[in-house]
């Protein structure tokens, strides 16, 4: 005799029931946890921006953010201005850090003017300009917060990624890679925008030459490294007019 569970009608019933149960479970879980997750993301953005301008709790060789409980207060204290650059128009918006760079990139592709957020930070009398950028790694998205001085010399960088290979591409968020960017010039000596290449052949593993527009690559992570370099080149270039204006005034 055929087993009860072999019948087509039972199979169909089981499949439908399973989809309903699993779907309901996951949907209610996701919507139930969404506010908490969004809040975590918001605080993380503040932590990232603060990290890039040197407000962090780095110890030894590990990268440590300020704690989430202190982040909003420090963000308020150190970030003096949040700007949104739209073509020639520059507006202030204290929610600018919530602008989704991914969405802006997509809307720029569709022909709209991209809104570029820029955060102006002050620490110990020094002014930092922090820009969020985004690009592609090997498997998925990579993004970064780069802080610069008014000459577009990098003062700090925080890199992060969606799913780069652990031990290889994922090492872009390790201190030894991120700290290499500090002091690197984005412009050539003649003032042309060059970006910072992630190079396998710059012969400068200790990164003593800060004006060569290159840092040392990570072995085994060529595509992630190229993605980081392309992201810096494509996205930070958009901020060049702002810095040129800054100098004129």
């Amino acid at each position, binding site marked *: 005799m055929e087993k009860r*569970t*072999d019948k087509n009608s*039972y*199979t169909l019933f*089981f*499949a439908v029931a*399973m989809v309903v149960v*699993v779907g309901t*479970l*996951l949907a209610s*879980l*996701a919507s139930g*946890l969404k506010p*908490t*997750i969004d809040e*975590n993301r918001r605080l*993380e953005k503040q932590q990232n921006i603060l990290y890039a301008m040197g407000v962090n709790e780095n110890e030894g*060789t*590990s990268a440590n953010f300020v704690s989430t409980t202190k982040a909003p207060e420090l963000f308020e204290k150190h970030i003096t201005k949040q700007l949104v650059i739209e073509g020639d128009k520059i507006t202030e918006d204290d929610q600018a850090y919530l602008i989704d760079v991914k969405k802006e990139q997509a809307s720029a592709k569709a022909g709209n003017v991209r809104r570029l957020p820029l955060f102006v930070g002050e620490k110990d009398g020094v002014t930092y300009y922090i820009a969020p950028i985004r690009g592609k790694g090997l*498997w998925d998205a990579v993004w970064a917060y780069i802080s610069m001085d008014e000459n577009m010399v990098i003062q700090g960088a925080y890199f992060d990624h*969606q*799913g*780069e*290979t*652990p*031990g*290889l591409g*994922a090492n872009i968020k390790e201190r030894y890679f991120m700290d290499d960017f500090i002091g690197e010039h984005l412009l050539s000596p003649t003032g042309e925008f060059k970006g910072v290449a992630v190079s396998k052949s710059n012969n400068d*593993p*200790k990164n003593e030459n800060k004006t060569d527009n290159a840092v040392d690559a990570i*072995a*085994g992570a060529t595509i992630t490294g190229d993605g980081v370099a392309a992201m810096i080149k494509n996205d930070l270039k958009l901020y060049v007019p702002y810095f040129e204006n800054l100098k004129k005034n």
Partner: protein
Amino acid sequence: MGLLSKKDVALIKDPLADDNPITIQVLGICSALAITAELKASIVMAISVVFVLGIGNVVISLMRNIIPSKIRIIVQLTVVATLVIIVDQVLKAYSYELSKTLGAFVGLIITNCIIMGRFEAFALGNGPWRSFLDGIGNAAGYGIILILVGFFRELLGSGTLLGYKVLGDSVEKTGLYALGYENNGFMLLSPMALIVVGIIIWVQRTRNKALIED
């Protein structure tokens, strides 16, 4: 009688050595190659798989009499995916830092063939308690190999263990590097993981001749 009978103990112990999922059953090779470039990643992956396989085996075992055999693979896949998403969402909400560390592994767990393999080969035909032990045992056997491979790859490839520079500083030329030692960058690439796994299989079969097939 204790908590675990002799048979139960075997369920946990066998996969650790003579019935190891990676070196004997040759399952789970994909993730063993992908994420063993450093020790920390190997350890995190090992713990995640113990968790998912332990619970997944119990769930499948409880459902074993009602799952229609025609669509059982899809059902198994749905159970793993659901478990993994629940864990991922809960971590994102209540332990955001940890969820970022685990980020890349979550997808890899769903596609890990050990999990499907144990559902299919064991949980569908055994009770929940035995399935739980089998899941823990196999995941631990997988984890041991992962950690072993991660240990050698990180040590020889980057000269570090868990991020600590145990061999000295390769740029400043201190410790072993002062004597002219160099890191082997090839160890960081996936093919070397396969070779390390091969060496482990070789050593294991040399020590236990019963494992050699004709």
